[in-house]
């Protein structure tokens, strides 16, 4: 506008009869300008459609909807975690912050384990096995035995020398001796869910299965013997603190214990422990000299090796979610599940991390 007006000022004094070339040009521009503006208005009115600026949303590393099923301690500082939609996470600060790693799959991962800070394995839905040899910079899917009926690997454990064992649906037990590159099926398939596996000594392995079943192999997995315990519920985790002393925990607060390397199992009913919720994982804490188990609805419990005193607790008033795996480091427990958090065994305080 102001340009236009300045121009108008120069031409307006009509008393001047002689016009310079410049004035002629200005006069021409002036006679065109209004119509140019009118045209622009019409054009803008008909064609210009403004677009909105959109706020960028940066997705959190661990989403509220994320379920993290598996957790593995690589060192005191470094943890690996695996969860839904092929999610693999690494933390180098005791679980305080996490970073996503790129994986080639979209299916849910149930567990992850590491031989060292480079070589790791993850298993999950569809019987998928993933492998990395560079600390998770590249994950590749490797061939592994599958069932015709259903495939879902639920837990994996690794042992020195490149050994790995994974268990899952349809009685699937697979083993690798070359850091997860090749896998062998160690048992005929059967319609039974195997939920956890652990090696006790050089020949003995135990498996926590469904409907109160515990499997044992004394010949390094060649043959398996199942024991029906007194627990009516399915088991979800097994752990031994010595070759003879072990605990299996499961749904509905089920706990069975052995003092004789699995020859006999003692069922400890919920009314003894006060724990009626599902227990999903258990570990022995060297530092505090007790078993620590974690499970559904924010429940957790601690009890000594002699099973004399059971302390069933709730993580916090607000976090009543389920946790599926735990790792103990000193007096701290890192747990994953619907949330990720740290439990202090001294104060019993639960701190949410990463969410």
């Amino acid at each position: 506008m102001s340009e236009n007006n300045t121009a108008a000022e120069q031409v307006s004094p009509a008393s001047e009869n002689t016009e310079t070339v410049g004035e002629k040009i200005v006069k021409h521009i002036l006679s065109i300008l209004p119509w140019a503006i009118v045209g622009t208005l019409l054009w803008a009115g008909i064609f210009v459609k403004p677009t909105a600026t959109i706020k960028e949303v940066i997705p959190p590393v661990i989403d509220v909807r994320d379920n993290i099923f598996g957790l593995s301690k690589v060192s005191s500082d470094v943890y690996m975690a695996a969860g839904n939609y092929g999610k693999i996470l690494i933390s180098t600060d005791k679980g305080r912050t996490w970073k996503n790693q790129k994986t080639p799959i979209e299916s849910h991962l149930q567990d992850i384990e590491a031989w060292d800070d480079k070589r790791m394995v993850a298993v999950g839905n569809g019987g998928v096995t993933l492998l990395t040899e560079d600390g998770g910079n590249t994950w590749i899917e490797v061939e592994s035995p599958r069932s015709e009926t259903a495939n879902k690997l639920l837990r994996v454990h690794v042992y020195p020398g490149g050994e790995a064992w994974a268990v899952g649906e349809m009685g699937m037990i697979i083993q690798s001796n070359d850091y997860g590159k090749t896998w062998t099926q160690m048992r005929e398939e059967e319609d039974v869910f195997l939920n956890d596996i652990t090696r006790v000594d050089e020949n003995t392995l135990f498996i926590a299965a469904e409907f109160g079943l515990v499997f044992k192999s004394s010949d390094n997995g060649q043959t398996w013997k199942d024991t029906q315990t007194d627990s009516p519920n399915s088991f979800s985790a097994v752990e031994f603190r010595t070759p003879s002393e072990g605990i299996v925990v499961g749904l509905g607060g089920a706990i069975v214990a052995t003092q004789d390397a699995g020859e006999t199992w003692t069922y400890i009913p919920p009314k003894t422990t006060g724990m009626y919720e599902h227990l999903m994982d258990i570990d022995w804490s060297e530092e505090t000299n007790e078993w620590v188990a974690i499970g559904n609805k924010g429940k957790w419990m601690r009890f000594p090796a002699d099973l004399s005193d059971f302390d069933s607790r709730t993580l916090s008033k607000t976090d009543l979610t389920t946790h599926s795996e735990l790792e103990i480091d000193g007096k701290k427990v890192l747990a994953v599940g619907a949330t990720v958090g740290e439990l202090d065994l001294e104060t019993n305080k639960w701190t949410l991390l990463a969410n």
Partner: protein
Amino acid sequence: MLERFSFFCMKQRKVVLAIVLVITAVLANFAYQIDIKTVFEDLQPSSHPYVKVHEKFKDTFGGTSIVTFMVQSTKGDIFQMPVLKAIRDLTQGLYSIDAINEFQIFSIAGKKLKETRASTVGIESFPFMWPNLPQSQKEIDDMKEAILRTPLVYGPFVSKDLTASYITVDFFDNLIDFNLVFEQAYALANSLDNEHVDISLVGNPILYGWVEHYLPETVKLVGIASLIFFILLFVINRTWRGTILPMLSGLISAIWALGVAQICGINFDPLVVVVAMLITARAVSHSVQMMTRFHEEIDNATAAGTELNSLDAARTTLKDLLRPGMLGIATDAGCVTVVAISPIPLLQKLVVLAVVWVGTVAVSSIIVTPVLLSWVKDPKSYVHPLNLDKLLIRPFLNICVNVVATKARYVVVTLAVIVFIISGLYAVNLKVGDANPGSPILWPDGRYNIDAAAINNQFPGVDRMFVVLGGVEEGEVNEFGGKVTGKIKNIEILDGMLRFQRYMEQQEEIGATVSLSDVIPSVNETLHEGSFRYSELGQTTDQNGELVFMFERASEPGDLLRFTDVDINYASVLMYFKDRKGTTIRTAVARVKRFIEENPHLQEIANITLAGGTIGVIAAVNEVILSGQIQSIALALFILVMMCIIVYRSSIAGMFFMVPVVLANLVTFAFMAWQNIGMNINTVPVAALGIGLGVDYTLYICDRIKSEYDLGKSHLEAISISLHCAGRGVLVTALVLIASVGVWLFSSLRFQAEMGMLIGLWLFVSAMSALFLMPAMAYIFKPKFIFDEERDQTSDANDAALTGNAPA
């Protein structure tokens, strides 16, 4: 022609007046019956694809009339008898509210929300406390456990800290009466409010109920504004005619407009009151111009020693002011008409109302005022001696003249340019959609907004948007030639839904999303003894089909209706929003589109379609407003420019009159951006009507300069005469209107207060540019359409004598 018309009007003044009176009487009868209410469908752009989706699915997936209650325990969690009883009583009390859709009541005390549990027969589902309250502490504890186990309830319907419960009810849109719902819902809530619970409630029926609730106050404010108006006019004009005639013009045009609206079946939205005021302000403004000119004619004659009768003075007034008056009205009407391009029925109806209203000003102010003036017996008499003209108005107008005559005119133009630039930069930040959380219609400390904040704090959000997935092609049949069912159970669609929900929830303002895919994992988990590792969809389409079947078998017909249609061919993803801000909604919509773009395969099978629910409809409205924003301003300016070009036969005239318009609008937009007032369905009409507002004052002033110059006056003489006559009219109307608009600042409706402020600002900027800027520009640039070159130039020499300054 102008002369002939005014001569005719004056000659037939009795006939003219009689016709006007008869029409007014007839229309008053209609105007009296006009329906004052908000019709919610009118707020929806019916042709917009989102609104089509909304209309198709609103009865299944939730409409825009949902009312949300929150029962908050005052001490401890909700699991205590008095609180549970309040929740139960509230839920049952909902049935006594008119027009509720009883299939859309969601409460832990209702029968739609249930826990699914494994049992010997597979899956069973149990309501939490329906039909009876728990009978013992054990039953309360069991219920608490059951709620904690159900993620679709714990979080969305019982707050995470367990201290509040969320209850929603939907209404049948065609039966709803906002006012009745408002009264019944608050009566219900207040009857249950006691020392154990606080009850909050929100929702569109409640919001618009508040607007109607304040209607008596609105009427009172209109009364007070009129009174202030009356008093000021009386004090300034010092005559009864000067007081009553402008008000009479306003009244006549209001009656005509409302009468015509009633005949056309247009209802009067209470929020439109401010628009009505804007138009009435114009009627008054034109009338005051007439009045001022009339008195000037009389005074001039007296000064010249002759006696002029009222009839002749009125005729001259009409003849001279017919052009600027009519041009102003035509421009206003033209600018407003542009708004009708918008597909929103409310705006279209408003355009009809506004155009009629503005049109009637041509009769009520421009013809009726001079006609009535022609009967004045003693035009020189005054009622009271306080002469503000002498004390205030004339000195002020002298300042205006002096500004033009001295170098100060350059300062004015420079200032205008600075204001122009600064407000232009600010105006860019003007937001489409609501700019703040809560409802911008009400004050932040009003009960409604406090309730909304409380609920949004405890729960995922009050306002919802749903997108629809799936669908059947026309004529599609299943393999047996029958009705196609269950298309949504496809694993890829179900999984896609979950991924979509996860993607959408990453946006902070989306508190939660729910869909069929959230139901299935809990059924699956239950079937696997409650193992967390099975909290996921079935691995195949068949498995999911079974899981859905199990859920359905365990529930009542219709329990899935929140998530799918009866045939399970369509599914919804329901998103809960924490606020209705324009940016929030735009971001959400853009993210839905981006998700679709990034998942072409999913889109092929799932056909994700935007969008229903309150937020879906607002998204549509905002898109329409955004895409029409530049359009309506540009076209309104186009009309303005063209009219000026045609009337003054000069393209420069178009440019010239654009200045005050653009300036007034930029300042107002900048003010809106600064005060965080968003462009939404309520503010758009005001903004559109404001476009034409800036020009009226300038037209009167410039037209007078032109006619005086044509009569042989010098540049400055012409400007001075114009400022003292037309300028007086501008100053008086601006003063009186700004003072009466100020009343709205005390409105209980924040929207009215803000719009009052906007209109005040508009009037102020328009008046200032008409009094200072435009005369200065006219003098500096001397555009030909005002200062005709053909005329004898000798009188220009007088300018120097007049001001002691050489002309520029």
